[in-house]
């Protein structure tokens, strides 16, 4: 069975510090991967998605970047955090087109607080 991991679970960082959030998927290969941000009490905002190693699409211009160094690893980064980067970050995966029904499976999330 497939599982998705995210770490850390919680993070408190000062403004201007760097960020690295990691997401890994087990039990499947060549998945599509996604990073979402959820502000308190709000819906999901798609930040980045990736269809393969080194292939990153950005949905919203922002202070963040993403990388996919390995097939099942997706990293969200920032060189200098802003207060507005605070939120709940969710990683998700899905099968490729034609392989399934496109539901996304989510990780447990990372709660980021920028102080």
């Amino acid at each position: 069975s497939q599982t998705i991991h995210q770490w850390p679970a919680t993070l408190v960082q000062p403004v201007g510090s760097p960020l690295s959030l990691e997401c890994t998927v087990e039990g499947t290969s060549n998945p599509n991967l996604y990073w979402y941000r959820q502000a308190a009490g709000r819906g999901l905002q798609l930040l980045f998605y990736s269809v393969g190693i080194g292939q990153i699409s950005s949905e919203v211009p922002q202070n963040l970047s993403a990388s996919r160094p390995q097939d099942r690893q997706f990293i969200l980064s920032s060189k200098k955090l802003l207060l507005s980067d605070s939120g709940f970050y969710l990683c998700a995966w899905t099968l490729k087109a034609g392989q399934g029904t496109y539901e996304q499976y989510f990780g447990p999330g990372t709660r980021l607080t920028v102080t």
Partner: protein
Amino acid sequence: AQTVTQSQPEMSVQEAETVTLSCTYDTSENNYYLFWYKQPPSRQMILVIRQEAYKQQNATENRFSVNFQKAAKSFSLKISDSQLGDTAMYFCAFGMSFGNEKLTFGTGTRLTIIP
């Protein structure tokens, strides 16, 4: 571009009663998928139910069922015999069948089950 609208920001219902959450969407496509996700206080996103647009029969999963009206572009979720564990945010989501594997999410409905 597709849009998903959830017009009920908050709802509450007595335990054991039935509740219906509304979702409408806008698309020019004919083949697509629709999903309901649940986000309990733990913030883990959990798939509740999915519906393929080409299927006329409404999907059901135990106490959860949908009313899919393709012509009206409506996709409501009915929860029967509601339980305290159903307390959560519920998100409606739209996904394309071909090529574009991104999901578009609504803004969510916060459901509270009252004991």
